[in-house]
Structure formats: C-alpha cells, structure tokens
C-alpha cells in the first residue's frame, strides 16, 4: 500500500487538473471529473485508511466491558464480517427489529462492549477535525463485501414493511421547499448545477451504482464519508430537520435503497468528488 502522502499528492494533482478543465469553460460535469481522479489513482483509494482504522477498532477490546466486536452478529453469525453488508438490512430476532449496518453496530457496541447509545450517536459521522468510530467500523465491514452481489431479502414481512415505509419516506414532501428525495432523484439524466443526480427510484442501474459505491473517500473534503452521512446531507439539502441516527426512518430508507441495488456487485468503498 502506498503512503498517505503519495495519495494526497496525487489527489492534489487530479484536483488542479480538474479546475483547469473548468477554467477552459467547457461543460464538464462532476462525473466527468471524478472519472479523471479515478484513472489517476487507479491503484488505490485513500478510504483504505479508514477501513484499516475500522478493522483495528473491530478487533480491539473496548468499552466498559473491555471486549472486542469479534462476537458481533451482523446477520451471518457471530463474528462473520465477510459478505454481511451485502445482505443488510435484515430482521434480527434478538432485537425484534429490522436493522441496517449502523443500527446493528450500535446494538453490538451497547450490548457487547457496554457503551451507551448516546455516547455513540453523539459522533455518528467523521469530520475534518475528528474521526468517528462507528463510521470507520462501517467502512471496514462494508469493504468486506467488495465483489459480492447485493442480496437483501424481503421475504420477512418486517423487512418488506420497512421497504414499503422507506419508499414512502423517499416520496415524502415537506419543509419550506416542498422537497422529497424524489424531487431530485426520480428522473433520469438531470442534474443540480453540474452535479449529476442518480435516478434512485425508477432506474435500476443508477440505484445500484449509487448504493454500491458508498462509503466513499470524498476528494473535495479529504475524508471518508459513510452512506448514512450521504443520506443525512441530502436531508439537509432537502431543508428537512435531521433524522435521528440509526432510527427506524433511516433504516427504512436504507432498506428501500439497498433492495433497489440488489443484483449488483458491491464495489465500495468508492471515490467521489
């Protein structure tokens, strides 16, 4: 693996190349530009550092109970990480709930390690100033599904219900701008300014690509962002209040988006503008 410095230098180079393209006043969309970054750093992704951080956290004894997460059951049995993300969200018997990755990690961190929910939910996302443990853990777990086909089952009636509720949340218009996810993500081939918008509800391929490329290292922000951060920031743009972390609402929305991505090979962590 390359050093962090080498990545940074390469990314800076890619960034300036893209700005030069803008200066030339051609209509270059952000997707065109990200394709350039990708070519330039094809042999690696800085998100690997977050994966490594997550792996260390997974294996390290922590919390009041001083145990690791290696007994955490992500749906494929205690300690099985490989391929777990490609089948989430799932219904879990012990909690009697449909849970996505973050919600399940939260369960393990509270029941196994003895953390309180509030302690973890207080730092759900990474920022420029500080990493987030649950976000790094998610990056690690997700990375262990790379190359595996998305296969979220809706056989369980509770998962089916969660999917249906998620679809309704996707179309739920409210707030001062009357926006829903569907305002920006239900038409193919449109964009906001220069940012291409995936059609997440009526275009299988768009839905698959969007879901299977998060978490992602964001070049413009210089840090690895989780899928839950992506949803959170879209709620912000939607002029909504903030969804509670790992709540039934975010799990349902995630179920809708994950099921829509079924059949695609998982490709994350990805690389975004």
């Amino acid at each position, binding site marked *: 693996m390359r050093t962090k410095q080498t990545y940074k230098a390469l990314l800076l180079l890619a960034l300036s190349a893209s700005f030069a393209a803008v200066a030339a006043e051609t209509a270059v969309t952000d997707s065109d530009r990200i394709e350039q970054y990708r070519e330039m750093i094809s042999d690696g992704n800085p998100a690997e550092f977050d994966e490594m951080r997550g792996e260390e956290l997974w294996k390290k004894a922590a919390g009041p109970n001083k145990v690791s997460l290696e007994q955490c059951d992500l749906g494929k049995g205690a300690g099985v990480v490989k391929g777990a993300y490609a089948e989430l969200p799932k219904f879990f018997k012990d909690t009697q709930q449909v849970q996505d990755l973050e919600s399940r990690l939260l369960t393990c961190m509270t029941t196994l390690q003895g953390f309180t929910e509030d302690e973890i939910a207080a730092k759900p996302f990474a920022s420029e100033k500080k990493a987030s443990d649950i976000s790094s853990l998610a990056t690690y777990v997700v990375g262990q599904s790379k190359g595996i086909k998305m296969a979220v089952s809706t056989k369980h009636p509770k998962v089916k219900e969660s999917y249906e509720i998620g679809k*309704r949340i996707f*179309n*739920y218009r*409210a707030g*001062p701008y009357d926006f829903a996810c569907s305002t920006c993500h239900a038409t193919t081939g449109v964009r*906001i*300014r220069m940012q291409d918008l995936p059609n997440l509800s009526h275009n299988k391929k768009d839905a698959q690509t969007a879901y299977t490329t998060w978490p992602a290292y964001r070049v413009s922000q210089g840090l690895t962002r989780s899928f839950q951060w992506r949803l959170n920031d879209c709620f912000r743009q939607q*002029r909504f209040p903030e969804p509670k972390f790992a*709540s*039934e609402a975010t799990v349902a929305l995630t179920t809708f988006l994950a099921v829509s991505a079924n059949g695609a090979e998982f490709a994350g962590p990805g690389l975004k503008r």
Partner: protein
Amino acid sequence: MNAKLLMSITVSAAFALAMAPAQAEKAASNLDAKTAEIVKRDFRDKGIAKATRVNQDELQAACSKYVDKLPPKLKAKLEAKEAEAIKLPVDGKFMGDWKAGEKLAQSGRGMTWSDKAEDPAGGNCYNCHQLSSKEIAFGTIGPSLLNFGKVRGNGEDIQRYVYARIYNAKAANACANMPRFGHMGILSEAQMKDLVALLLDPESPVNK
C-alpha cells in the same frame, strides 16, 4: 356439483375479487399512517431546521400520497386553492432590477440546518434552470429559461404570469418540483420582482 354449492363458490369468488383491491388500499393507507408516525418521531431540531418541518400541508400530503400523480379533480382543487392565496404586488408593478435578480438566481443558500436565521435565502434558480447564456453551471430539473423574454415577450400579462409562477409554482401544477417562493416566505416581494426582471428585461443576460 349441486346448484347451491356452485352458487356459493361463485359468490365467494366474486367477493374475494371485490375485496382484493379494497384490502390492498387498506394496507397502503396503513403504511401511509405508519410512515407519518415514524417521520414525526424520528426527526429532531437542528439549527434553524425544526422538527416540525416534517408536518405536511394539504398539498404536500397529497403529492406524497399519490407520488405526484394526483387524481384530476383533486389536482384542480388544490391548484385553485394555491392560486387564490397568491398576493400580487400592491403597487401593480412587477419588474425590478435584473442585476439583483441574477445574484439571487445564482445563490443556492438558505433554510438548511447549516444556514443561520439571519442569512438571506437565495433563489436557487440556477440549481434547476438554464438562464443566462454566460452561466454554464446550470441544473436541468426545470426547463431552460434562456431567452425567456425574447420568446415570450415582456408585456404586463407575461410579467404577472412570471411573478405568480415564482410566488407559487403549484398554482399552475400542483406537484411541480419548483418551490413556492412567495407562498412559503422564502423570497420577498422586491426579490421576486428582481427575478421577473431577470427573465423579462431586454437588457438581462437571459435575453442577450
């Protein structure tokens, strides 16, 4: 098979057929109710974006329920209601300053939880529309408005039309993707006039 049995099979089959859509409708409305309950519980205040923002008005609720495809009668009723609430400028003038309008059209700020209450909201117009030929970073959710005044003229009727459209886009199309800038108090009367000028003034870059 005797006639009585045949009759009862036919009746119950007909009954089942009649029940299926009714049951599906009931299941859907249960899910709608459950969704509303979850949304009301699972969002919280952040900055200026208060949790109460998830409470829908009649129009938002209808467009969500029917996923923007309203039954024609309901659509007409809601549009009439939105149109009735439009407040036109009291001085009868619709055209402001296109230069101020261009600045507003460029700004995508305002009303998110990372904005401050005192930050003025922009118009977000370039997020969704092409306007001036000089601005290449435009969105495509809405139609291109390039040359709008050149094509549609700039007499009083079209001025009133554009003002009303910005004030409340839902009066013309109940589930349009464009925000209701006047109705929701996002932009002031003077700001909306500046935007009318941006679209219609012959000197505006939209028409150059």
